[in-house]
């Protein structure tokens, strides 16, 4: 986990020098809502030129969405495109882009075609090698323009970092407006929010099924916490854990067949396994303390969870299978409050909430080294979850006592507040990669 941003081998090795030139030659443009920490010497300078025909799309313009996606990762520096408007490779004057410090350049067209559709073509060019790195061609209806922009950003991201892009993924979260609680699903940038379910009682702990088709969550609509699984496409839902006492903290196994849940039915708060349809109850932890907030390893062999068996809430790991030999191993030792662990997608570490003094912050710990890194310096962070490529962490925080969502890069260098609606937002969960249908 946590590699420093690696530049693709396809890019010129002189990018760092060019970046230095760019720093000297042009004023740094501060973008709205984005805080960038550190020097940014590892950031890839990329120019996104407005597409030919894009001005006719108005508010549905593609390149602002692409630029915002890339910038949010902290891995890119957006190069000023002012005065230069190439749309085809033959129109590109490479020396101009070298002077501006761009390593890569995205150009293209968005042309209306029959039936109200828009034909999009984008090329990504390596400035130093004067060669095409990748391209994107698609014809979409107007309502698909934003999704297309995310797919273009994914293409650019993948070509320049060698890593999979997550701009086409979705997030789930709970928004409280007045007395109403709404579980919503939105695009990864916070736009295009759709309600999944709404109640006048609290909803917490949404969890995506690994295939992205279902959400597990905890609803208090029946005077106590009950775990439900809801299919997004059909809106049908089922109470999968409604035992005597409290039922909470659902976590999907990587194959989507089981859920780890926390039940008080046998006393205390302990972790159990159930089938995703509610059957097959099986006890997982056995302690006299609190065991909660389970998260499966990507290979499904382990869970990490919060337990106060040692006196204060700390994070532990134990094998899911193995019968009597199941021994939990304590993972966190710094401080007296470490909670809400979530495995990284590569299984090499986990993110969690660490309290120091009065502050609750997002942290990351590496399994191999045990090294802890704090990613935020805010006051009330909660519910961290990794992007499916492990490069960012989505979490809930507060600004002036109002809950908002933020994303921080896994190296802690870039943070951005997601576009927020009115209301109090909490309990975010980053969804899986969207498989091709």
């Amino acid at each position: 986990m946590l590699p420093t941003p690696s530049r693709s081998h396809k890019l010129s090795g002189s990018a760092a020098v060019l970046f230095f030139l760019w720093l000297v030659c042009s004023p740094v443009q501060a973008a709205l809502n984005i805080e960038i920490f550190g020097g940014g010497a590892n950031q890839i300078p990329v120019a996104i030129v407005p597409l030919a025909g894009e001005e006719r799309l108005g508010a549905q313009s593609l390149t602002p969405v692409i630029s915002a996606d890339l910038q949010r990762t902290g891995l890119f520096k957006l190069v000023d495109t002012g005065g230069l408007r190439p749309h085809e490779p033959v129109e590109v004057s490479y020396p101009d882009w070298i002077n501006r410090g761009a390593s890569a350049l995205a150009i293209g067209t968005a042309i209306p075609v029959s039936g109200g559709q828009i034909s999009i073509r984008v090329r990504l060019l390596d400035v130093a090698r004067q060669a095409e790195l990748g391209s994107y061609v698609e014809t979409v209806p107007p309502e698909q323009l934003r999704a297309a922009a995310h797919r273009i950003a994914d293409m650019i991201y993948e070509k320049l970092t060698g890593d999979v892009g997550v701009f086409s993924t979705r997030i789930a979260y709970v928004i409280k407006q007045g007395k109403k609680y709404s579980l919503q699903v939105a695009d990864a940038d916070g736009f295009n929010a759709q309600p999944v379910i709404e109640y006048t009682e609290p909803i917490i702990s949404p969890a995506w099924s690994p295939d992205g088709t279902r959400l597990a969550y905890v609803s208090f609509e029946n005077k106590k916490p009950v775990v439900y699984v809801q299919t997004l496409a059909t809106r049908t839902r089922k109470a999968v854990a409604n035992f005597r006492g409290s039922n909470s903290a659902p976590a999907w196994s990587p194959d989507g067949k089981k859920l780890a849940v926390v039940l008080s039915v046998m006393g205390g708060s302990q972790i159990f396994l159930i089938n995703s349809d509610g059957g097959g109850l099986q006890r997982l932890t056995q302690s006299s303390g609190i065991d909660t907030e389970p998260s499966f390893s990507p290979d499904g062999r382990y869970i990490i969870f919060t337990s106060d068996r040692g006196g204060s809430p700390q994070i532990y790991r134990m094998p899911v299978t193995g019968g009597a030999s199941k021994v939990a191993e304590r993972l966190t030792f710094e401080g007296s409050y470490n909670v809400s662990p979530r495995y990284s997608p590569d299984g090499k570490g986990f993110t969690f909430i660490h309290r120091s003094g009065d502050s609750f912050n997002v942290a990351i710990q590496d399994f191999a080294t045990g090294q802890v890194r704090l990613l935020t310096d805010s006051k009330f962070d909660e519910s961290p979850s990794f992007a499916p490529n492990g490069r960012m962490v989505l979490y809930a925080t507060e600004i002036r006592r109002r809950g908002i969502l933020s994303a921080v890069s896994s190296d802690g260098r870039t943070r951005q507040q997601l576009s927020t609606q009115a209301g109090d937002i909490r309990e975010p969960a980053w969804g899986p990669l969207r498989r091709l249908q």
Partner: protein
Amino acid sequence: MKKVLGVLLISLLTACASQTKQSDGADVEDRDRSRDAAMQRESKQAEDYTSPTLNPLTDPNSILSKRSIYFDFDSYVVKDEFRSLVAAHAKYLREHSNARVLLQGHTDERGSREYNLALGQRRADAVKYAMTLSGAQEGQIEAVSLGEEKPNAMGHDEAAWAENRRVDIRYQGE
């Protein structure tokens, strides 16, 4: 229609009866019906204010009308000042074997929602244990937690937090 009449009848009975005989058929898990009944009864309560036979669970002069037990920070010990309250409810349960209660544990807003849910469960379990020691049957009591989700006080200071670290007692049908 039959069901609506039944609910009305139940609510009339529970509102007027001095001996709160719990309606049969609606067990603790049957939330929708019991919530309907509770709403119906609330609307009836004003009319029944002058009734000579007050329900001890709602009579403001009865200790049974007190329904919250408060806790110290990071603690689930039932404090001495709440012992008589817990014992009175246990006695009521002992004398009304059909009565059922839901104990809802609560915490203040600080920290993880799921961990707070578990802390609230511990408080509800502690009250349940104290009630069973005083003779209430285990099967009469369901201990659950609402964590930090349902604060009594909306503030963000110690005074508000102290009001939110509690267990609420809710009788079936309330």
